[in-house]
């Protein structure tokens, strides 16, 4: 017999089974592969299932799947990092981090929780935000004595929005909702920082982000007015 935890009495961290190796013996071999129902059958659904299957293979440390995923998502992920950091060298470092995080963390992807694309770009955004916050913590010599106004900061964050359809979708939000979402997503500020900067209670910022996101969902899932006409 080996070192199985027959006499384990210490606190077991959450997420571990609390008894020995019983599950290891019971467990039957599980073959990888995504059993996602293919409702519909459009091209975008196919490629979405494809991306999820790639992540399943990456979780099994398949380098070929990783290469395919890199070919598909290096552009979108790099664009997020470059847009946030405004520095090609830093953006490359962050992109490298993003893909290593995908390689190591692919098993954390849960197809029931959302699409592979959403997950990958969320990792890219998260790493970029972390990098922006690290940069902000680094003391720098101020170029001028003027403290940027709220409007300047919102403007700077909003300037990162390049795509017309996203700009138009943001314009469908109230000014308050737009400011909160733009400062959070494109500015990389925390809810607390936004509340402080705008002099508004934290609860109000949380509500604006929630309502703004729900509105955004309606606007972006509807056909663009130009193409509908």
């Amino acid at each position: 017999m080996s070192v199985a935890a027959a006499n384990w009495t210490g606190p077991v961290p959450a997420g571990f089974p609390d008894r020995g190796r019983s599950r290891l013996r019971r467990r039957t071999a599980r073959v990888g592969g995504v059993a996602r129902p293919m409702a519909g059958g459009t091209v975008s659904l196919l490629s979405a299932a494809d991306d999820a299957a790639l992540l399943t293979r990456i979780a099994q440390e398949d380098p070929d799947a990783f290469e395919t995923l890199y070919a598909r998502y290096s552009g979108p992920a790099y664009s997020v990092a470059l847009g946030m950091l405004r520095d090609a060298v830093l953006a490359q470092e962050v992109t490298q981090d993003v893909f290593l995080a995908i390689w190591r963390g692919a098993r954390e992807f849960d197809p029931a929780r959302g699409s592979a694309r959403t997950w990958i770009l969320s990792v890219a955004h998260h790493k970029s935000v972390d990098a922006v916050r690290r940069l902000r913590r680094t003391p720098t010599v101020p170029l001028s004595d003027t403290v940027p106004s709220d409007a300047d900061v919102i403007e700077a964050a909003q300037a990162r929005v390049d795509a017309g359809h996203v700009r138009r979708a943001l314009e469908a939000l109230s000014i308050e909702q737009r400011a909160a979402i733009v400062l959070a997503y494109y500015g990389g500020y925390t809810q607390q920082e936004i509340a402080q900067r705008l002099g508004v209670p934290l609860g109000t910022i949380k509500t604006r982000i929630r309502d703004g996101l729900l509105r955004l969902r309606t606007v972006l899932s509807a056909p663009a007015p130009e193409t509908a006409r």
Partner: protein
Amino acid sequence: MTHDEIRESLPGYALHALAPDELREVEAHLAACAECRRELAVFEEAAAPLAAGFAQEEPPAALRGRVLDAVRPGRRTGGRGPGWMVALAAAAAVIIVLAGIAVSLEQRFVALTARVESETQALALLADPASRVVTLSGPAAASVRFVFDPTTGRGALIATGLRDPGPDLVYQVWLVAGSTPRSAGVFRPASGTPVIVAVGADFPRYQAVAISVERGPNGAARPSAAPILVGRLGGG
């Protein structure tokens, strides 16, 4: 934070707009609450199109090699690796063909290089006053320590005296955030010499480091057994 307070922070979580302490609380809750996970999915999908707002650019071609090399140790893509590495691979191939010995020198070289790297990293961590050392405890009679630097995200597990887990089994290292253990690598003990496993992570996110016995050679996606050793990292 209560369930209702967590719910109010889910939209902010989807935008990565939570402060570190709040982030840890929300993640711990999410691991345990299916209702919040479902609700979060709505906000994550709603936030997803914002990524398309950035000007779309392609990264320089050189980045591809760097990223792919990082996950394929010993294999070089695009032939931009140092010449001696290619020569070594060629030499290994010749030896296999001539002697019929199915041993890849390159693989052994890479394994050795990886070992030297992780040992160097462990030594550097031990020498760094900013590092923290945690001793793992549990039913296994062994000396296992985890040294890590919370700011750089570098860490190493140093194990001596662990018994052979049995044929086809390995020791698997886990980092635990909330109730979600994340695999940080597998290893088998080497008699007489310490085993060093390099672990890189955002350590302040994790509350504990743990070791369980899992099926080899790659371990499990989720722990299938109670941990034999646990050390508190103090995060979360």
